[in-house]
């Protein structure tokens, strides 16, 4: 969920009244939003960078509001206020109209075929006779940034450029050229650079360097020119300095270049509809309409959600106008959702579904639950460890090779702790002991959880395996304790000690265990796991100092 920060006093001014924090929280809840935090710039800086940096920062109270991910129309003060005002019946749902300039032809943006190789789509619009104030201007820039971060996927899908139309002249051309052939003075720079130079210049720019990869490796870079050859922008990296907007700008030319044309249209609609209220002819753009079958009074509810609706008189049919701000409406169910919000979730009468069902436990989980209870009763304490770990944990530290583990590997771990899904429960229990060395001896721990192993019979190429693992850590190895626990477990599972149809253990070689102190567990002739005294090297690698015996076995064969 994106969070929108708005200045409280500015918000109240726009809403035409003040609220207590509780009242505003309540209003947000009714409208399907969440007042996440009440803070100030000063507080944020002092929290993130320390008190010293915060002195001198603004004390103005900020409301941080969580907005649903697909409601791009609520990402700025203007949209939020408009939504809330209409919801509270204080404002009529706006109708957006497209208007032609009083004199002359509409502006044109010509897209050349060359752009297909890098960023094939572009859409554009003009906001005429707009009046900016410092606050409106800041909000305009911030909305651009919010859209860039959210729907535009950090400019990879869509990039927005805004220009002072009075400094340039159409028709405009959107084309693509080799980087060496593009040369212009970029925003807030004093001299001209070629695109190649710009890319190296911005390598160290804390903000722009994140976008370079989008076009860096392409043979040609996208660029927009006006009819006099002035560069408007080199999307998605930077605008030209020539056409930059300011507080004095009256006519704004907005272009959105994209790899996804649907999203480009949504973004352009957002930019235009949010700020069209500051134009001398507010709310002017096109409308589209779909109809929806339902009750008449819903029409009123929907209108409160900026979805102008009216009963058509034909049966239960109502006609709903979807404004361009509501790109999230793609199905009748989205309209119904808004009707429910307007009605108020808490006003809905609770009912009980009459669905008759018989409950069943998942057999593997049922067995797990039963075993856990009895293992705790047998004096072992349950641990709960992570399913992800480092390669070292499941291989090197246990004296094994990673290639022998059948481990599933993660491609994008942020740290070594998340390199692989665990293939054994043992490392987790040994790490739990290491973190609890101050506890009185002996330590007796167990865990019943899933490990993950590569498995070619599955559609995803891997499957879980439910394991039972126990360790005994004391001044003496206590193999007999772990062996006794195995006997008890088998008793619980109703398997008799016998070769053939029962269970038995038999000496085995395993590099995790001390030579001659490891046995393999066979149940009905099939190997299910191992037990033994851990190898001193393993004990050392987990930073332990005492002898330790362990048992790990698969429990799925007992279902």
């Amino acid at each position, binding site marked *: 969920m994106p969070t929108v920060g708005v200045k409280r006093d500015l918000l109240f001014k726009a809403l035409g009244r003040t609220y207590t924090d509780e009242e505003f929280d309540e209003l947000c809840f009714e409208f399907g939003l969440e007042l996440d935090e009440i803070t100030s710039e000063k507080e944020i800086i002092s929290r993130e960078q320390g008190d010293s940096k915060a002195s001198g920062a603004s004390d103005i109270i900020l409301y941080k509001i969580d907005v649903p991910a697909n409601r791009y129309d609520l990402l700025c003060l203007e949209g939020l206020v408009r939504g809330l005002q209409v919801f509270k019946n204080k404002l009529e749902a706006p109708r957006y109209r497209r208007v032609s300039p009083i004199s002359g032809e509409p502006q044109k943006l010509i897209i050349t075929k060359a752009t297909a190789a890098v960023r094939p789509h572009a859409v554009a619009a003009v906001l005429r006779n707009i009046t900016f104030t410092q606050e409106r201007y800041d909000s305009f820039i911030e909305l651009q940034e919010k859209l860039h971060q959210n729907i535009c996927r950090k400019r990879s899908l869509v990039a927005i450029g805004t220009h002072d139309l009075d400094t340039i002249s159409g028709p405009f051309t959107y084309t693509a050229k080799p980087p060496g052939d593009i040369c212009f003075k970029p925003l807030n720079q004093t001299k001209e650079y070629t695109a190649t130079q710009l890319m190296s210049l911005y390598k160290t720019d804390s903000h722009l360097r994140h976008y370079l990869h989008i076009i860096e490796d392409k043979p040609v870079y996208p660029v927009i020119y006006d009819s006099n050859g002035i560069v408007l922008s080199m999307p998605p990296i930077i605008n030209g300095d020539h056409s930059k907007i300011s507080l004095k700008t009256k006519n704004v030319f907005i272009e959105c270049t994209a790899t*996804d044309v*649907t999203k480009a249209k949504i973004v352009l609609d957002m930019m235009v509809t949010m700020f069209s209220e500051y134009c001398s002819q507010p709310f002017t753009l096109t409308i589209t309409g779909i109809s929806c079958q339902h009750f008449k009074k819903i029409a009123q509810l929907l209108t409160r959600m900026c979805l102008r609706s009216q009963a058509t008189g034909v049966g239960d049919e109502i006609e709903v106008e979807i404004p361009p701000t509501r790109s999230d409406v*793609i*199905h*009748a*169910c989205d309209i119904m959702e808004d009707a*429910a919000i307007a009605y108020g*979730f808490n006003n*809905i*009468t609770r*009912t*009980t*579904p009459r*669905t*008759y*069902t*018989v*409950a*069943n*436990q*998942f057999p*593997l*989980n049922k067995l797990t639950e039963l075993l*856990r209870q009895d293992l*705790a*009763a047998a*004096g*072992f*304490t349950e*641990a*709960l*460890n*992570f*399913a*992800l770990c480092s390669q070292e944990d499941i291989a090197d530290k246990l004296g094994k090779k990673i290639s022998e583990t059948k481990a599933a*590997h*993660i*491609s994008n*771990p*942020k740290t070594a702790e*998340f390199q692989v*899904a665990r293939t054994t429960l043992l490392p987790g229990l040994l*790490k*739990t002991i*290491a*973190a*609890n060395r101050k*506890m009185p001896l002996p330590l*007796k721990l167990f865990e019943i959880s*899933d490990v*993950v192993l*590569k498995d070619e019979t*599955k*559609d*995803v*190429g*891997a*499957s*879980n395996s*439910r394991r039972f693992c126990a360790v005994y850590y004391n001044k003496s190895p206590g193999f007999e304790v772990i062996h006794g626990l195995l006997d008890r477990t088998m008793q619980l599972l109703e398997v008799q000690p016998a070769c053939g149809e029962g269970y038995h253990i038999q000496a085995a070689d395993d590099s995790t265990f001390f030579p001659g102190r490891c046995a393999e567990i066979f149940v009905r002739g099939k190997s299910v796991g191992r037990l033994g005294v851990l190898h001193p090297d393993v004990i050392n690698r987990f930073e332990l100092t005492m002898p330790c015996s362990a048992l790990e076995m698969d429990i799925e064969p007992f279902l």
Partner: protein
Amino acid sequence: MADAGVVETLLRRIEKVDDGVDSLEVANSLGVDHQVIVGAVKSLQSVGDVISAELRSSKHWELTEEGMEIAENGSHEARVFSSIPLEGLAQSELMKLSFGKIGFSKAMSSKWIRVDKTHEGGPRIFRTVESIEDQVREKLLLVQKGNTSQLEEKEKNELKKRKLLSEVTVKTYWITKGNSFSTTITKQETELTPEMIATGNWKEKKFKPYNFEAMGVAPDSGHLHPLMKVRTQFRQIFLEMGFTEMPTNNFIESSFWNFDSLFQPQQHPARDQHDTFFLSDPALAHEFPQDYLERVKKVHSEGGFGSQGYKYDWKIEEAQKNILRTHTTAVSARMLYKLAQQEKFTPVKYFSIDRVFRNETLDATHLAEFHQIEGVVADYGLTLGDLMGILHQFFTKLGLKKWVEVGNSGVFRPEMLLPMGLPEDVSVIAWGLSLERPTMIKYGINNIRELVGHKVNLQMVLRQPHMSTGLLSFT
């Protein structure tokens, strides 16, 4: 019980005096170690009010090991003096003696001896005075006899600096008669024995009283993990409500089932590298239900089933990418698809509680993996009222008196359900929450690492109470 002889002697001493005796003095006069007397005091204290003992601490001076040697044999410098005959001694010879080196410099500074460096055959040492007075030894002897008070503070400190004296704190008891003082003590029994029961001689015995203020011995038992105990409770609630458990034992899932089947677009931020763990091995999933896959592709890219769709180029390559599932809803999707393949639809109620994974930035309340609780109901004509009603029942069973934000809920979109082949008039409602958050609230744990993972404090696992009534109590 301490040595009975010592106890008896001590009691006699106490009997003879009016005020009381000092334990250290008794020890000295009896010629036994002080600890023996302390033992006797302790043992007498345990049998009732025979004596009363007041702990006192005092400082006194004691000879160090070196100090004792000097008290016996004289100071190093005096021994040097007396080792030198009238005709003098070669310096090299003197240095061979154990006390030679230290004694030489001290004797020199006291001007008791002199060195003739020009003497033939090497430097030679001669006495310079007729006789000497070994003050160091005399002072130490005073201390040894307990007459420390005759020494000046300055003298004591000088000897301390030479490491011949040390100041020690001694704890002694001042022992007086108790209310039930007696010189004869009957031995008290600590415990009842099988022999006493057999012979009946317990009737003549006195028993040592128990200390009821001490804690008992902790039972030698194992414990279940608190988070798993809460999981058991949640399972129980679902089972009581008639929900069947889903098989969620598949941590690795394809993007198709985790995202695409749920109508989550392929450019959605949740599918980013920063939020989801992708796999390098096995990297891709194979074998999807082909018809269904085509319908999913169509609803995303072109729309259908009453939807405009997202209108983008849906790619199988993106759907094939294997990930660690980000929610158990991936399993719900598989289950609902399976349900749709039945000849005739039957209403179902499903639940699961299992691990999910997010490649998130870690902090006190976020880990890369956590347990998700999920409930799903599929039936003809379910409404939002049904969802609210069932949530109300669920949270009432939890013992939630007030609604707190612990999860989310909703109605699955038609773009998800219809491509699966579920009938049009079937709705599916679902809700989910994390297992960790309510557990942390319940146990008042602020840092999730104290609850999950190997850094868990086992003491915490041992301490948790049993939950008999409501699972969570918020007031």
